[in-house]
């Protein structure tokens, strides 16, 4: 089963490089703190306004840090001139996609947990009841973002103005995921059970399946150099 081993090798390598260099993690942690303060200054005072806007603000934080994390997916390959090495590795390239996807997911979930924790503390929101449902929505939403994000990161890795092109390509495609997650989060924070947002969850699952399938099938084509 060298496919799984190759995917794991890529994921392990990315996380090892990240653990040692901590470049992306530091940037994301600092970024979420910054986000928190900005929202605190602009919204902190008024409880009602905050409650109404919180889901949007929370997911805005998740999406912006996702863009940062996903945009850097192939940065380590580009900086260390290893891109051609990936291209020339024989065998199915989608193993590399899965490795990169796993690495991205791990990174994004760590940052999201942090952002969620910070928001809960600083905006003193009682997450208690909503948490289990929220975890499901965050996981499905993050998978949707990362699935297409990793594919588009590979496409824009060697392109001029990639920092601009990557969000412009990714965000419109992710509108369904953004709508579903924000609306589901809104309902959950209002105390509704997960079942009440069943249709959004179904849409997220459908989106994740479509995104993963098309990414796995086309990643070879993207990584042809």
């Amino acid at each position, binding site marked *: 089963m060298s496919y799984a081993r*190759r995917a794991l090798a890529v994921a392990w390598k990315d996380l090892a490089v990240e653990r040692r260099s901590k470049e992306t993690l530091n940037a994301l942690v600092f970024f979420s703190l910054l986000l928190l303060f900005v929202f605190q200054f602009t919204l902190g005072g008024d409880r009602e306004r905050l409650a109404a806007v919180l889901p949007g603000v929370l997911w805005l934080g998740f999406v912006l840090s996702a863009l940062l994390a996903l945009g850097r997916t192939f940065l380590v390959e580009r900086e260390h001139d290893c891109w051609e090495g990936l291209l020339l590795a024989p065998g199915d390239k989608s193993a590399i996609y899965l490795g990169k996807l796993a690495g991205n997911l791990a990174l994004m979930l760590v940052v999201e947990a942090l952002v969620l924790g910070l928001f809960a503390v600083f905006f003193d929101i009682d997450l208690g009841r909503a948490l289990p449902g929220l975890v499901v929505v965050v996981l499905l939403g993050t998978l949707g973002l990362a699935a297409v994000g990793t594919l588009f990161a590979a496409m824009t890795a060697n392109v001029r103005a990639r920092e601009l092109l990557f969000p412009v390509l990714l965000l419109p495609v992710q509108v369904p995921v953004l709508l579903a997650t924000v609306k589901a989060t809104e309902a959950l924070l209002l105390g509704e059970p997960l079942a009440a947002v069943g249709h959004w969850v179904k849409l997220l699952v459908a989106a994740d399946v479509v995104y993963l399938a098309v990414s796995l099938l086309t990643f070879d084509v993207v990584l042809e150099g």
Partner: protein
Amino acid sequence: MNLEPIVRVVDVRKVFGLVPVLDGVSLEIRAGEAVALLGANGAGKTTLLKILATLLRPTRGTATIAGHDVARAPEAVRALLGVVAHGAWVYDDLTARENLKFWATLGGLAAGADEVTAALAGVGLERAADARVRTFSAGMKRRLSLARVMLARPRVLLLDEPFAGLDQRAKKWLEGRLEALKAAGAALLMVTHSFGRELGVADRLAVLAGGRIALDTARGSLGPDDIQRLYAAHTEDGL
């Protein structure tokens, strides 16, 4: 050396925008044979290497390795290839051992720990095996990428200026490694600018000028100055 050429380039043409960098290149290399590819800057040496390495598609003409077309069956070609390019393909934050382990696993090789250690010893990096590659010199990084290539035991080796930046001791050492690979039956294509001792490895010299192979001759007993004269003669005509 058996007769059937393992690397066969037939009338390859490559156009960037409107500029024909390669204009009908033909070349053959047999197993166990090393060809040094000389040429001025911009003559298309690296472009030809990239085409053989399946990184660029030829605009016209075909190139095959062990019968597999580099454009149509890149996967089959890549399984046979070892490439040491300008970029050393090393992750600075990983140690030498981790780098080798990663590339071996990615290449689908079941390289055990002892095999990795042997490869590192083979290139004289056993002492620095667990040091971060960030601390390595250019020469050490080149030796690490050579160890990576040798782990895969490729049948065809593409080297882009392998001797650049090495001191005399490292050059002599690299020459020995390349001779060993040749003896093991690998075919070598080496792009180089220097006419010195490093050409000792080469069985044939090819000069790329005007988008074509202007000269393809056995090295035989040619000394550095003979090669210099031949090269100068053909590159002037070529320009």
